[in-house]
């Protein structure tokens, strides 16, 4: 019996286990609460960031407006002032720059939230908002509308409908397999994306190469250059509904990181939360894409950036992706309209700068999962 010679000599088996009772570690709940409280205040402070970038964005653009003039025009909205600027200055500020800034903020926030929510749903940090085919569906919808009409609202409506249709296609296709596995949903998304991609190619192939084809190609590159207030009003309901529901259920999204069995034993209705996330993320993405065209990388990169700052807890992460996403896309859009003499399509820029930036994040290995 050499092997047990170190065991404590006790007659009662229970007490021999009791004897290795773990030492109580002193802790102060208030210290933990205080830490959480401070971290929350810091996050609230971060909400200044998008507003600061928005303010700064008003001053830059190809058409020269003196910074002093910008400030004066802005102040004149509140205080009565002597008019020392031209009508063109005011039009540039309120009809060109301002709607564009608002659109960039909304689209950036929406794509980032949708990306973050999908990364949670699919338990994978490499997922982007178009995983279920929303982008290829919207691209096809827009291309068909461009083929038959040039009315901007028609193109937007068709893109929105195409995006929704593609996601519905992916969802119901996955239901056919009756497996309930999240992987089947991903594969259905791949199938539907490929299908709508092919339809888009057909549309491009038959399009008039001098007039329609460039329009389609340019739309697909993504841009906010022609955004007007009416576009923003049109997408606002979808963005508000999708965004606020995701914000409301954001803590629950955490539970999807666990195995399905664990989530079930914690009382979660997996089917229901899956449907809610898909509907909300699709509303956000389809609404964004229909006014901006295809803008990649934002929905992938921004959630990573957020996780690096605050960790993966969606309670903190989702509000932060709004802050980071809106600021990020706004800066990108500022660059797209000022970097060179002509406009660079936004979708090109987000990928051109987003890809090396993402590579840098991976290199830092602080992405919050690697």
């Amino acid at each position, binding site marked *: 019996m050499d092997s047990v010679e170190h065991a404590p000599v006790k007659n009662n088996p229970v007490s021999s286990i*009791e004897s290795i009772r773990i030492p109580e570690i002193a802790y102060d709940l208030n210290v*933990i609460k205080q830490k959480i409280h401070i971290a929350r205040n810091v996050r609230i402070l971060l909400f200044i960031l998008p507003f600061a970038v928005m303010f700064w964005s008003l001053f830059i653009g190809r058409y020269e407006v003196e910074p002093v003039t910008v400030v004066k025009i802005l102040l004149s909205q509140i205080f009565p002032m002597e008019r020392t600027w031209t009508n063109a200055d005011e039009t540039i500020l309120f009809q060109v720059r301002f709607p564009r800034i608002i659109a960039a903020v909304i689209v950036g926030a929406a794509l980032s939230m949708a990306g973050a929510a999908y990364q949670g749903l699919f338990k994978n*940090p490499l997922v982007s908002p178009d995983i279920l085919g929303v982008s290829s569906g919207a691209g096809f919808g827009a291309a068909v509308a461009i083929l038959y009409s040039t009315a901007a609202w028609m193109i937007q409506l068709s893109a929105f409908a195409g995006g929704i249709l593609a996601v519905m296609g992916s969802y119901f296709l996955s239901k056919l397999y009756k497996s309930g596995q999240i992987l089947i949903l991903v594969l259905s998304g791949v199938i539907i994306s490929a299908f709508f991609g092919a339809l888009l190619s057909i549309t491009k192939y038959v399009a008039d190469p001098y007039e329609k084809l460039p329009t389609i190609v340019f739309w697909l590159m993504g841009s906010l250059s022609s955004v007007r207030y009416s576009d923003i009003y049109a997408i606002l309901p979808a963005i508000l509904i999708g965004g606020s529901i995701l914000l409301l259920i954001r803590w629950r999204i955490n539970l999807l990181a666990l195995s399905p069995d664990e989530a079930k*034993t914690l009382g979660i209705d997996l089917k229901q939360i899956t449907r809610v996330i898909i509907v909300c993320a699709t509303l956000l993405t389809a609404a964004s894409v229909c006014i901006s065209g295809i803008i990649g990388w934002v929905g992938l990169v921004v959630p990573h950036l957020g996780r690096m700052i605050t960790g*993966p807890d969606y309670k903190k992460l989702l509000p932060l992706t709004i802050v980071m996403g809106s600021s990020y896309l706004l800066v990108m859009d500022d660059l797209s309209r000022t970097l060179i003499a002509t406009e660079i399509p936004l979708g090109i820029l987000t990928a051109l700068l987003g890809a090396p930036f993402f590579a840098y994040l991976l290199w830092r290995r602080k992405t919050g*999962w690697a």
Partner: protein
Amino acid sequence: MEEEDRMGLTYSAEKLRFSWDGKRDIFRDVSFSLTTGEIFCIIGPNGTGKSTLMKCMIDILEYQEGIARLDGTDIRTIDRKTLAKRIAYVPQGYQVAFPYTVLEYVIMGRAPYISPFSSPEEKDLEIAVRAIQEAGIMHLIDKSINEISGGEHQMALIARALAQQPELLLLDEPTSHLDFGNQMQVLSLIERLKDRGITIVMTSHFPDHAFMVSDVVGIMKDGSFTTIGPAEKVITNDSLKETYHVDIRVEYVEIAGRKVCIPIKNQPGCYCPVKG
């Protein structure tokens, strides 16, 4: 704590049968009943359906025949949220897609108490911190779940289950993959939870553990219980040989103060009769 107001629980299973394909039964004719504060230890070889039985007990998998009742109510008719407040389950393996801190991980156990549209409140934080302390991993509270060891993760899982404030705790192989120190920590935690009136069902590969903590032991073999009863009566040379097909001696060891199970190595797979 809320648990103090609770009346106690009874859980009973009657003639449960489960099969994946309708042809080959994973288990059949499984019956047992539990009362408050009891530790029920299920032992048996790999692949006899211990884990499957546990999943059926909490309605993750649906059994084909029989009925499992919680306080007399068919568990399949109880909604998930209510069930989650009374029964917690600690799975054998774990999967976390993102590197949550231990505190964030444990607070997920509060899910059944939090409405879908809200987040944990201060009360939930307090309960989670207390659960972490009870599991003895306060020093890990800020650590990422991906950076802690397997034994520590097991403790975090148990802490998460405790944050559910369950009356019945199902532990699937809580001591597998753990070293001696961690095994004893888990077992001593189980003892303390029993003292608090939590009913525990655990599966184990180690008959020794049944001697250490259980009130009732069930030996599961080929999909049903061969015997159920106190460890002293159930775990014998004969029953272990019949279960594991190797010679195992159950001997009283004075220095340990209890019986221990010793596999006799020289003839693995030996079907010769056991003497004495």
